[in-house]
């Protein structure tokens, strides 16, 4: 039942639905796009042979449809009751809340780690990157600045604190995704171009990590301590994690640097402090994952061996991209 042509079909509709949502003239079109998004994602993740993924797809359906209903309701109220375009009112708070729930952002994020735990790596990749595009762009059309700043702070704190106690790699990446959502929402408030830049780099980093985990078929932290892990795989893991955390010579530092620049120019000092401190906590738990694999004498499980597949040769390329992208990404601004 789950053959590739089904997946291709639904994937195509998924991409198309996002395009509908972001390029529509009226709010109604946005809502239509969101609904089609939901409906085409569900078949991608549900696999009737696996009880966990059925439950996951059900949870996903419930939360997203609740959020879409609310979104529709708020759109209609806005059209009927409010004739102005002022963005700082309660309707915008309500619209933003429903969009935040769609994305899996902070006060409404409780479904996100649960669902991520039940999906495979490729589905996770779609969930963490593609599914965030249309809610974010819709967010940028009509947002309430004060509410969003509060949500950003909540995002950052929950993303950093929640991940400290995790051992499952999927949940770890989920919490880091929540943290990066905080950065991305702020970049929406600066300029949409910057959001695009951040989002592209973030999805590139996530794709490299997820492809690495997918190839090694790793879902939990104790699977990282393998006896014969190749040095380049470990190096790639190190570089990607540090890049995700935003450490300077790597790719992930660049968008964070620009956002910090904007923050400081516009005198958001307290917010800068929160951004920095939560980044530190995030980097702490990334390093906690990888440092034991980088010492000379680390904890290895002798009875587990990694079979090198043929498609692992791209790992070197991805490491190279992560390291040199700081320079290469300045070409974007030429």
């Amino acid at each position, binding site marked *: 039942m789950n053959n590739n042509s089904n997946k291709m079909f639904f994937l195509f509709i998924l991409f198309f639905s996002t395009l509908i949502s972001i390029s529509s003239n009226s709010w109604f079109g946005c809502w239509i796009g969101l609904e089609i998004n939901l409906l085409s994602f569900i078949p991608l993740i549900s696999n009737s042979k696996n009880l966990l993924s059925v439950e996951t797809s059900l949870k996903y359906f419930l*939360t997203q449809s609740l959020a879409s209903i609310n979104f529709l309701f708020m759109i209609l109220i806005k059209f009927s009751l409010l004739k102005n375009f002022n963005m700082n009112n309660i309707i915008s708070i309500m619209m933003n809340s429903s969009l935040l729930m769609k994305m899996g952002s902070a006060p409404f994020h409780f*479904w996100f780690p649960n669902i991520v735990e039940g999906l495979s790596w490729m589905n996770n990749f779609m969930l963490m990157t593609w599914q965030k595009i249309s809610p974010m762009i819709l967010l940028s059309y009509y947002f309430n600045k004060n509410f969003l700043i509060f949500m950003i702070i909540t995002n950052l704190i929950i993303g950093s604190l929640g991940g*400290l106690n995790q051992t499952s790699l999927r949940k770890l990446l989920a919490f880091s995704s929540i943290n990066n959502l905080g950065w991305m929402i702020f970049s929406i408030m600066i300029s949409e171009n910057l959001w695009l830049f951040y989002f592209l780099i973030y999805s590139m980093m996530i794709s490299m990590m997820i492809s690495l985990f997918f190839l090694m078929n790793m879902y939990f932290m104790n699977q990282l301590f393998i006896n014969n892990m190749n040095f380049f795989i470990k190096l790639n893991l190190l570089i990607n994690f540090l890049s995700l955390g935003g450490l300077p010579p790597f790719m992930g530092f660049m968008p964070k640097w620009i956002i910090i620049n904007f923050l400081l120019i516009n005198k958001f000092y307290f917010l800068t402090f929160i951004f920095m401190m939560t980044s530190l906590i995030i980097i702490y738990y990334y390093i906690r994952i990888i440092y034991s694999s980088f010492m000379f004498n680390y904890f290895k499980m002798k009875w587990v061996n990694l079979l090198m597949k043929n498609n692992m040769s791209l790992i070197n390329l991805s490491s190279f991209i992560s390291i040199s992208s700081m320079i290469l990404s300045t070409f974007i601004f030429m």
Partner: protein
Amino acid sequence: MCFNSFFFLFFFMLINFFFFVYFIMNGLSVFFEWEIISFNSMSIVMSILLDWMSLLFMMFVSLISSVVIFYSKSYMNSELNLNRFIILVLMFVFSMVLLIISPNLISILLGWDGLGLISYCLVIYYQNLKSYNAGMLTALSNRIGDVMILMVICWVMNYGSWNYIFYFDFMKNDYVMFIISFMIIIAAMTKSAQIPFSSWLPAAMAAPTPVSALVHSSTLVTAGVYLLIRFNYLLIDMFFFKVLLFLSILTMFMSGISANYEFDLKKIIALSTLSQLGLMMSILSLGFPDIAFFHLLTHAMFKALLFMCAGVIIHMMNDIQDIRYMGGLSLYIPLTSLCLNISNLSLCGIPFLSGFYSKDLILEMVSFNSFNLMVFILFYLSTGLTVFYTFRLIMYVMINDFNLMMIYNLYDEDYIMLNSMFVLLFMSLLSGSFLSWFIFSYPYMIYLPFNLKLMVIYVSILGSILGFMVSNMGIYSLNKLLLSYNLSSFLCLMWFMPNLSTYGLSYIYLNFSQILFKNIDMGWSEIYSGKGIFNILKNYSVFYNIYQMNNFKIYLFSFILWFMILFIFFFI
């Protein structure tokens, strides 16, 4: 390697000699200057000043170092890494030459720091605990001088360039020059081991004997004196010069007394070096830089010779340095004891050896000009003490009975060492008169009453009689040192001043830092920034997890609740 460097340095010495004679006969001096960087108003230049003083000093340094390298071919022949040693010595000579020829504070700093660091490497050459401690003491005491010179460089930036020789005539009453002169004096005092910093010189005798001959007799310790000679026009009216006079006279006196209580051969020679350094510094601070330079050079000759003889004796005594085991060596090693005697007598100032010319001139200048009573007494007393410990040493080493073993073979035919000593012997005999004819274009006018003129001979004879009497030890002699134990230990241990540099500096601060480390680094700082924050974050994370692990309906219902609240607010 040894022969190559010996020939190179000897040839260098001959070149220097030739140029020295030419320059001093024609009154020339040459100044090279290369500008390296010039930015805003400062210009860093590399300058070389070749006048008769620097050429003469370079000639002496290269002579002594060539002879020492030749000597160490035989002295250090059981050393595996002899090349390393020779390279260190050559680097030392290079730093010294850089110090001598530079009229510029930056290149003086290069030479000065180089001297300090390389002397550290040479002192710790034998890698044992005593050498390590001695090297640490040497390096850190010299480091104080380095810091002083660095600060002088900072202060001289006020004047626009680091060529200090151009500023002396114009800036004498400036506040900046006051500070600079203070720091220069302290730097020279650390290098030349005057009183607060005098503990490193006896300790540095843990170095190999060729190193002591080169470094601690003639070159390193005279670098401070040389710096003050160069700066003399600046310093001559300053107050700190009088302080320097006081401290250097005390150094001379103290080391003279301490050398009488010592029983280690190299330490006695080190303390005599210290005494002569005090003499040089004091005559410099009385206002006679050329006499100080003269004594510096002659002292270099006979002190290097003395260290080399000591090296031969130590080799012969199966590496024992204690003079109580030696005795009667003059009968068995005539050539070495010839060199030893001549250098010792030259040290005492016996007429017409080389030391006589400089020492006697110094004492006559002190008597002729009117200085105060303490200066006068301490000068003559120190001269008497010099003769005292010299004669004591001669009695112990050469005249009394042999104390090591019943049957022993004393071997004097190591001609490599002997040839090198003969070169210095020749210079030690003749350099006094030779230098006095060159350096002083006209002699000093000295007119003294008869007894005052002979005062030198009186104290010398008194010192020699005392030295003879003290060293008449037999089996039943009463050890008066033990009877006056407190006084003896005070006088022997250099008036307890080494504790200033060693025990006094380390104990209190280490204690205090242990308290700080335990309380702050491993104590409160862990709660406030290390594990404490981690525990707080961990607790927050656990607390968050309680919210995360919930029923799914609760999530949905919380969302609905939020919207209901917003709705109510909207419709109010």
